């Protein structure tokens, strides 16, 4: 079975005052129908750029897709025309953004905004689209949907706004739904509601979900498969169980160990020292080497490639040489 969305060797570069900087370097990801792929990493690892590239929304200039392919159902997106992309966006592939306040238009009612998305892709009257919008608001768990459809975004709470975003994103039953940190700005109780809603929608519509997050806890609850990203590369990829139970790359181990657990609190947390390096300062070696306890001379001079070293694919010399 070929993947619904198949990203191969994607390379995205940006022109900056430091010269051309590679934001994504040979990123390969795929997601199948009805599956949730978790993409995890710290800020600046390229998670959101991957999502924007897939949607054809890389700001250009300064950015550009410098190589690789993105295939949706076998159709190549990197060479698709802007008109074709516009037809696909919303209908076949949709995105839920991190900040529901800034991604809704403040001067239109939420009902009108959802109806607009429907009318762009389906030949229906405004009345029908508005009815559909109300039905969608009901579906995503908004109480008294007919009245709420006449509300403006500022009249709704953060959780409600994110539900509106989800209603808009699923309005045309897309095959692929990209959720970029959909709950970062929300309370844990609301986060739980949004996660449960995404899972329900997936069961109902069979959509493939790409969940972008920095939280391994969210991955555990939501994802079937996980890709760990660091400094613009995928450094580990496997089933969620495999990554969570037997993480290979020291960075993946670090991300799991540094979460304060609900169960016990006495021991010191394992920390990952330092920060993600700026992309223009990446050298020839492994981008994680400076923060890694297992780094040696080879790590500093040679970039590790994603390969299976026994358990599941990871990009680490130390794993390959069985040093950890």
């Amino acid at each position: 079975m070929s993947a619904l969305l198949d990203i191969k060797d994607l390379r995205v570069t940006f022109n900056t005052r430091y010269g051309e900087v590679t934001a994504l370097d040979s990123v390969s990801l795929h997601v199948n129908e009805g599956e949730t792929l978790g993409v995890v990493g710290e800020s600046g690892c390229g998670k959101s750029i991957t999502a924007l590239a897939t949607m054809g929304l890389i700001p250009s200039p300064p950015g550009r897709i410098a190589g690789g392919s993105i295939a949706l159902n076998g159709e190549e997106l990197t060479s698709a025309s802007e008109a074709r992309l516009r037809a696909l966006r919303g209908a076949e592939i949709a995105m839920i953004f991190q900040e529901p306040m800034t991604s809704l238009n403040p001067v239109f009612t939420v009902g009108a905004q959802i109806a607009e998305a429907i009318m762009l892709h389906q030949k229906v009257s405004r009345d029908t689209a508005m009815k559909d919008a109300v039905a969608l608001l009901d579906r995503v768990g908004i109480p008294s949907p007919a009245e709420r459809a006449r509300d403006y975004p500022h009249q709704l709470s953060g959780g409600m706004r994110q539900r509106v975003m989800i209603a808009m994103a699923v309005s045309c039953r897309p095959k692929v739904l990209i959720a970029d940190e959909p709950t970062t700005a929300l309370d844990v109780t609301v986060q739980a509601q949004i996660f449960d809603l995404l899972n329900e929608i997936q069961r109902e519509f069979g959509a493939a979900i790409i969940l972008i997050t920095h939280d391994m806890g969210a991955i555990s609850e939501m994802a079937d498969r996980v890709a760990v990203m660091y400094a613009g590369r995928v450094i580990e990829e496997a089933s969620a169980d495999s990554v969570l139970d037997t993480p290979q790359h020291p960075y993946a181990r670090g991300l799991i160990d540094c979460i304060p657990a609900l169960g016990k609190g006495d021991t010191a947390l394992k920390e990952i020292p330092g920060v993600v390096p700026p992309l223009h300062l990446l050298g020839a070696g492994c981008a994680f080497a400076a923060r890694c306890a297992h780094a040696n001379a080879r790590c500093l001079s040679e970039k590790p490639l994603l390969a299976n070293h026994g358990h599941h694919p990871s990009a680490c010399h130390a794993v390959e040489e069985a040093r950890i």
Partner: protein
Amino acid sequence: MTVLLKARDLTVRFALGKKGLFGARQHLEAVRSVSFTLAKGRALGIVGESGSGKTTTAMAAIRLTEAAGGQVLFEGEDLLTLSDEDMRQRRRDIQLIFQDPYSSLNPRARVADIVREPMDLMEIGTPAERDVRVRELFQLVGLRPDQLNLFPHQFSGGQRQRISIARALSTNPKLLVCDEPVSALDVAIQAQILNLLARLKDELGLSYLFISHDLGVVRHVCDDVAVMYLGKIVEHGPVEALFEAPQHPYTQALLAAAPSLARRKSKGYVRPMKLSGDPPSPINPPKGCAFAERCPKAQDICRQSPPEAREAQGLHVACYFPG
């Protein structure tokens, strides 16, 4: 166990607009007679959703927000009745770390001056002693001496939070109020700051009033927890008891909502307890239990009169049907 800070029936009211020219002024009670005790050398976590009054409670307790009623005893002295100058002198014992490390540091000051400023204002030691102290503090929080003369924008979020901590420690405080100190940071950086805060508490014998919405973080740093809902503490007690056997339905729902590595999609995890809707408006709070309309256990009595706190399983729970 010596008590450092004790709040009794602390209430905070904010004035709202009038209804018409001759209408009565409405008030919003953000904190509704909250009582808690913080012992020396311990950390008290305050958790709850946004709008539950966590930050307002802490700010009122250290007199940065005006309280409408109640008492706050700091080492036995009521902070709310101190004169302005006495309160200013007291401030050296009470310091604050903010959530956002980007907006809480002056972008035009060198970080050594930022850390030094509280000592200048409080006139602690001679200028030479202050310089020595700044260097000590830098080392204590894990910054290098060669970074002394840099500006805040030259640091990452985690390092800025270290600067904030160094500034807070410069007056040798007894109480540190931490208002969501790690929620703006990446997970990997969170761990660095949490470990630092835990180490400082042990080494310097500090007490923390620790505000957070992240239960895992509170579990890690705090000794005691108070759970707030719509301006009231609904459950409080030692951290182990509260996390192992929460008695209030709201605490149970909060714990069920927190993401955890133990909850796997592959193992068919389904949330046992779901909270729907949002908290009610604090402008006209329900006369009974504020949580009643979202609570699976609610009965008629819950909607009629608010439950008083009572002991259950080593915790103080404001609920008619704990457990």
